[in-house]
């Protein structure tokens, strides 16, 4: 009975949402949208502060945001405060896992020896995966990617070591220090901007020529910090999930 009621309710909700969105009443017709009314338009031409017609790769310099990657320019510059928030979401989630499982779970007691191929293979691949991850977050302002995918990749490399190396499992403490350091530095960069120019998270450095590795001001620095933080937090979550379940 309960299930039928739920299915009917879901059906009603689904119909409500579907008809509301697909009636096309609310949206402007395709092709008729006035781009000047939308914030995204200014993000593309990078002309929020000063008017800018064309952004040319490798030539335009000293733009308000020097990132060649649109997504990055929005995520880490125009809306950097949201990213600080998202980093905090991950931080608090990993902390929650640690608080719950850290007190409930015990250390992995039984040992197993992975077979030769996995042991050697993991050690060979680990630096490559980690390097790719680092590459991705260092080049976050130029190419697709950035701190979040780069950090996840590093955590996946650590997971591989966990599977392969029993000594690593035993020695592994936590990355709490890296996590704390990266997070604090992100906030401090923001506060530095506040002190020097009056805006929190202001891009106080020279943004350089668009497309250069050393460009875009604080964006690459922030993305490296985000990458480190995401990497260490996800690793922490993996470590906690590997703990043995204990009956209370």
């Amino acid at each position, binding site marked *: 009975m309960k299930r039928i009621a739920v299915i009917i309710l879901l059906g009603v909700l689904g119909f*409500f*949402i579907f008809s*509301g*969105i697909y009636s096309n*009443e*609310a*949206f*402007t017709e395709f092709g008729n*949208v006035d781009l000047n*009314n*939308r*914030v*995204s338009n*200014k*993000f593309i031409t990078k002309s*929020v*502060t000063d008017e800018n017609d064309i952004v040319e790769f490798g030539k335009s310099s000293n733009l*308000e945001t020097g990132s060649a990657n649109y997504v990055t320019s929005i995520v880490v*510059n*125009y*809306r*950097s*405060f*949201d990213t*600080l*928030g*998202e980093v*905090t*979401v991950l*931080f*608090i*989630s990993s*902390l*929650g896992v640690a*608080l*719950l499982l850290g007190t409930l779970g015990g250390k992995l007691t039984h040992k197993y020896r992975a077979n030769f191929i996995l042991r050697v293979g993991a050690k060979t691949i680990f630096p490559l995966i980690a390097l790719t991850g680092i590459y991705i977050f260092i080049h976050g302002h130029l190419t697709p990617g950035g701190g979040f995918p780069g950090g996840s990749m590093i955590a996946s490399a650590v997971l591989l070591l966990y599977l392969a190396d029993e000594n690593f499992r035993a020695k592994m403490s936590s990355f*709490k*220090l890296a*996590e*704390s*350091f990266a*997070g*604090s530095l992100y*906030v*401090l960069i*923001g*506060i530095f*901007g*506040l002190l020097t*120019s*009056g*805006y*929190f*998270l*202001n*891009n106080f450095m020279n943004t350089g020529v668009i497309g250069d590795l050393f460009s875009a001001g604080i964006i690459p620095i922030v993305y490296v910090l985000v990458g480190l933080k995401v990497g260490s937090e996800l690793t922490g979550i993996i470590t906690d999930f590997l703990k043995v379940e204990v009956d209370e």
Partner: protein
Amino acid sequence: MTNPVLLIVVPLLLAFLSVALKNNKKQLLFIAAVFNVVGVFIIENGSYVIGGFRAPYGINLNLDAYSHLAVLVINILFLLIITMSNEKTKEFSTVLLVALAGLNGMLLTGDLFNLFVFLEIVSITGYILSTESKKYKYSFNYLILGTIGSGLYLFGLIILYAIFGSLNMADISFKMLSYDTGKLVVPIFLMFIGLAVEAKLIPFNGWVRGVYGNANSLIGSLFASVYAGTILFVFGRVFGQVLVLSEYLVAVFVAIGVITLIAGEVAAFSKNKIREILLFSSIAQSGLVALLFVTGLIFPTVLQLLNNIITKAVMFTIAGKISDDADTDEADKLKGIFANNKIIGVSFTVSALSLIGLPLFYGFYSKINLLLGLFSKINYFVAAFILLATIIEGAYFIRLLVKLWTPGEEGKESNIKFVTDRKVEFDFNKKVIAFMLSLIILLAGISPSLVKTNLFAMNKLLNEENPSYMFELKGGM
């Protein structure tokens, strides 16, 4: 210090540092709470952009009379609550630091997506705090409901963004004025569900009973006072000031509010455990506040909201402490418990009577204001429901107070020797702060002009017909 962003980022910085400085976590929490309380008196009203990009392109913080009052009250209550339950904060210091940052962020932000981010942060800290009771099933319930709720809020917001091309509150609000709001039922309703889960409105409040009903003195008072206050302030911002609602939606939201109010009071009436009575009363109050915000009465609603969160901070702390020490919070087993704890008893009583809205207490001032507001809007139905709810509220609170004060069986001789043998020791902090808060309630009740002239920057808005505080600053655009 004039930039309110520091209220958000300083607790956050200390939260990150507290992971490394494990032994000083508790002190860091205290420092952040004190910093914020000092800060709210120094910050100046205005719009503050982040990253130096003007609104609506960048994110901005909106510090107007409404949000200034909100951060003022929430930060002070936060400090008082963690001081009252000082012995319980250690384990959760980092979580509480992040929560403090998130709560301030929710209240200050002028951007609907940024609000979602802070809503996420605050709800995750809520899930973690709720695990303190070790009743994991209830926490899991809360987690699932809260996550789906904020997902629906995001879904609604995406639709709004697709229509208006902006996330800035003031920008969207302006664009909505020249738009047929009848077409926006779906996104606004989805956003409403998202906030209603946290605001405990029926039928989205399945998690409340398990979480509030098992919370200790720290967690219970934080949830019922600081969290509930913040989410309702945000609710008032989004649905009372930013989004332009069509008449049909207003009717639906008011109906949900009225149902929540009446059902909450009736449920509270049928309960015997102190915390359950309080939690259903909180649900009812949320319904009341939400429906009043939707009808456009901002100032009286804020007065009532303050009444609710200040009194709930006192009552939940006391109820939580009683159940921690006495292993039960069933009123029948705690007869006469206040006879040995007179200061605590008086504070609890003052809070309860103020919440009912008896004259001489602050609650009377807030309730008479909101009833006058409703009458001036010719909204007699809602006013009648509020009066009905007040009668039920009065009945169960007075019954509860009689049980907690008078030892012995009902209808028989009451004597001090019948006092329950369950011992509850209230520490100095709890006594002083609870008593102080009840003194404030009394003072504000005896001379409401004190509230009007001193505490509120909003007083000039008291008589305004349809105030929209948002537009003092125009979102910084």
